């Protein structure tokens, strides 16, 4: 279905392009999903990482229009990438994309007055615009009302009512769009539409907004807008969720629950996927003749890509909960609760989400830092996110802990020594993140504290369709982003184990190109107590941290090895000293052994500067930590 659609997108250049604009939490994405269903695709705008959601609006098997779902914004000051892109799209300044033929401006009608500030700014663009009063049911239920006809007359644009959650009113939007198509050419800007525009662009910023506000006040009064009563449910929930004592407790309960779900519920699914990959690998290898191709396919691609696909259940479960938390309105409250603590270490409330996601995987976590408006806050967040103990570190920790830490009680029967070390490693990551953020915000990213503002939308039931489509999106992005890199890296690594060829085929691993590289870097890692074998593991783990487990298995001559393998644990105990093993654990806690993360940071920060700085900073920290551990223990 997707391919078919992409073909179509090329053919439909003459179909109108309609932009969906609106503030965050106005129900824009839910309406977009209602209008386009699965006929949508996600790409990036050229040169930046803001996602471009484009979908087809069909009616009776005819493509009526292409819809683009613009990021939710509060204004056009272009402080954030989202705002800049929205402005550029609406002004027709995006390469390879025509200026939209019309704007469907979606507002949360329960907050009409504050949303009209943005409507004013959109109207100043002089594009044909439809104003959508969304959440009509909620406005009515809470005793609010507005005269849509009067509003339409005053603004000089058509106005329709919708209910994003039930889908009521979407026909009205489709009707508006099909009329655009019917006319074949888009109506030129009428005087009516110009009426909304004040020639205010040259005014100083305060006057410009004051002018708009004045207009909004007039519009609201002309259209007899009666604001709804504050939502009783939201008020009640907030009195709990933002309560001095209950608030933080609920916050911790939510965090623990999300954690728990990533680490327990995902496990059977992950084991299932692992089993599928292994068995299918065995089937394929039985079916294929013993050639280099089989070795590439099974040892290289299958194992490498498999090591990524395994994380998919965790990522999806994490994003399911994040989706529920965001769409229900809790995430905004969580950011407010986290803000004080985050502020003290130089971050802000919105950094909470990326840092939490970092426990599953740094790649989607770094992507989710986009909502942070302040550039320096965002950079600092991206910089420290990889210190969160991602799930790829876990197999490494489990292997080394099982091999070197005795399974004995610690602090009475309450904790086991192994569990204690694991908790310490998590704490080490958090400590490194805090110290790093603290230093960064006082040196390189020094700035006036940003005016952290968080709008608290009313609590709402998340829409299943929107949740489902979001999961589909996230899964696809994770697989393609991470998959591509790991695919490349594993092929390169595999090739390095195959040369130089001997008369019997591939060389012993110590003689291979990879083994030689291991020997070359041995002097550098000797002060940490690591030999060439660990050196090779460190290199291969650049693909993904847990790859070191498989690599060490290969080097020590295990047929199959995983982190539970007793043989591998025994082999490690013989060749790695206890202090060196502690050092290796600390190295993995700090070092950025993940090319997928480096590539993501490069894209998100627009260059190599921050990505390479972060990589070397974390490497130095990991190296020094391992060095100290080797001396101390």
């Amino acid at each position, binding site marked *: 279905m997707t391919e078919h659609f992409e073909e179509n997108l090329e053919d439909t250049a003459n179909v109108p392009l309609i932009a969906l604009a609106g503030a965050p939490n106005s129900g824009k994405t839910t309406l977009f999903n209602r209008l386009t269903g699965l006929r949508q695709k996600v790409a990036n705008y050229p040169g930046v990482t803001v996602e471009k959601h484009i979908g087809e609006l069909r009616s009776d098997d005819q493509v009526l229009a292409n819809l683009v779902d613009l990021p939710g914004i509060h204004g056009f*000051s272009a402080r954030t990438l989202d705002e800049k892109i929205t402005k550029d799209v609406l002004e027709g300044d995006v390469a390879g994309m025509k200026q939209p033929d019309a704007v469907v401006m979606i507002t949360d009608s329960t907050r009409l007055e504050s949303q009209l500030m943005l409507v004013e700014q959109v109207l100043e663009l002089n594009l044909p615009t439809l104003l959508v009063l969304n959440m009509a049911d909620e406005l009515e239920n809470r005793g609010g009302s507005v005269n849509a006809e009067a509003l339409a007359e005053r603004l000089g644009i058509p106005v329709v009512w919708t209910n994003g959650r039930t889908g009521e009113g979407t026909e009205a939007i489709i009707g508006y769009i099909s009329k655009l198509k019917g006319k074949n050419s888009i109506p030129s800007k009428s005087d009516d539409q110009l009426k909304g525009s004040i020639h205010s662009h040259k005014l100083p*910023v305060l006057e410009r907004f004051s002018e708009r506000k004045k207009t909004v006040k007039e519009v609201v009064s002309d259209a007899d807008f009666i604001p709804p009563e504050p939502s009783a449910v939201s008020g009640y929930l907030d009195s709990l969720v933002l*309560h001095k004592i209950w608030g933080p407790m609920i916050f911790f309960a939510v965090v623990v629950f999300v954690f728990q779900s990533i680490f327990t519920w995902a496990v059977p699914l992950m084991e299932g996927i692992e089993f599928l990959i292994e068995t299918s690998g065995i089937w394929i290898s039985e079916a294929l003749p013993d050639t280099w191709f089989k070795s590439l396919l099974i040892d290289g691609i299958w194992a490498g890509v498999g090591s990524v696909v395994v994380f998919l259940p965790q990522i999806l479960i994490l994003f399911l909960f994040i989706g529920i938390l965001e769409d229900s309105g809790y995430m905004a409250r969580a950011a407010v609760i986290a803000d004080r603590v985050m502020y003290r270490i130089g971050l802000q409330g919105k950094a909470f989400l990326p840092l939490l996601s970092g426990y599953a995987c740094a790649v989607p976590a770094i992507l989710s830092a986009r909502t942070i408006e302040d550039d320096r806050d965002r950079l600092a967040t991206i910089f420290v996110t990889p210190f969160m103990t991602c799930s790829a570190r876990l197999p490494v920790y489990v292997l080394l802990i099982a091999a070197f830490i005795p399974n004995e009680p610690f602090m009475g029967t309450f904790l086991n020594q192994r569990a204690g070390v694991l908790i310490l490693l998590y704490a080490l990551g958090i400590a490194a993140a805090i110290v790093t953020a603290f230093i960064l915000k006082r040196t390189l990213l020094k700035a006036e504290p940003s005016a*952290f503002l968080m709008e*608290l939308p009313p609590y709402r039931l998340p829409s299943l369709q929107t949740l489902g489509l979001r999961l589909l999106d996230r899964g696809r992005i994770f697989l393609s982003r991470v998959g591509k890199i790991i695919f490349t890296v594993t092929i390169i690594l595999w090739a390095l184990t195959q040369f130089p060829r001997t008369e019997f085929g591939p060389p012993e691993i110590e003689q291979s190109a990879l083994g030689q590289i291991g020997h070359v870097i041995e002097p550098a890692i000797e002060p940490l107590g690591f030999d060439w074998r660990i050196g090779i593991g460190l290199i291969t783990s650049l693909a993904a941290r847990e790859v070191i487990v498989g690599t060490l298995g290969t080097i020590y001559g295990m047929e199959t090895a995983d982190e539970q393998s007793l043989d591998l644990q025994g082999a490690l105990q013989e060749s790695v000293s206890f202090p060196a093993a502690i050092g290796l654990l600390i190295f993995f806690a700090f070092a950025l052994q993940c090319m997928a993360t480096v590539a993501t940071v490069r894209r998100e920060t627009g260059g190599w500067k921050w990505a390479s700085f972060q990589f070397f900073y974390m490497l130095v920290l990991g190296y020094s930590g391992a060095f100290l551990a080797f001396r101390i223990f």
Partner: protein
Amino acid sequence: MEPEKTVITNVSSDLRLGEVQISQEVELVSIDLPDDQAEPLFERGFLPGCRLCPIRSSPSGDPIVDVDGSQVALRREVANCLCVRTLSDL
């Protein structure tokens, strides 16, 4: 208890949003921040002359304010840059 009357003689714009009691509606007089930092506030309707009403505080004591029917959480440092006056001063 201090006599209530002294309030009236106060210069009204000395009052900061951060000091306003919950549920007390006030009018914004000015924003004591450079324009580029104040712009996000402008966008959300924090403009001189608008009505603001603190509705609750966050667990850490930062105000959550109603502006034009939207609820916005501010840091108290920011709230203390917003000069307001009580409606009785009008």
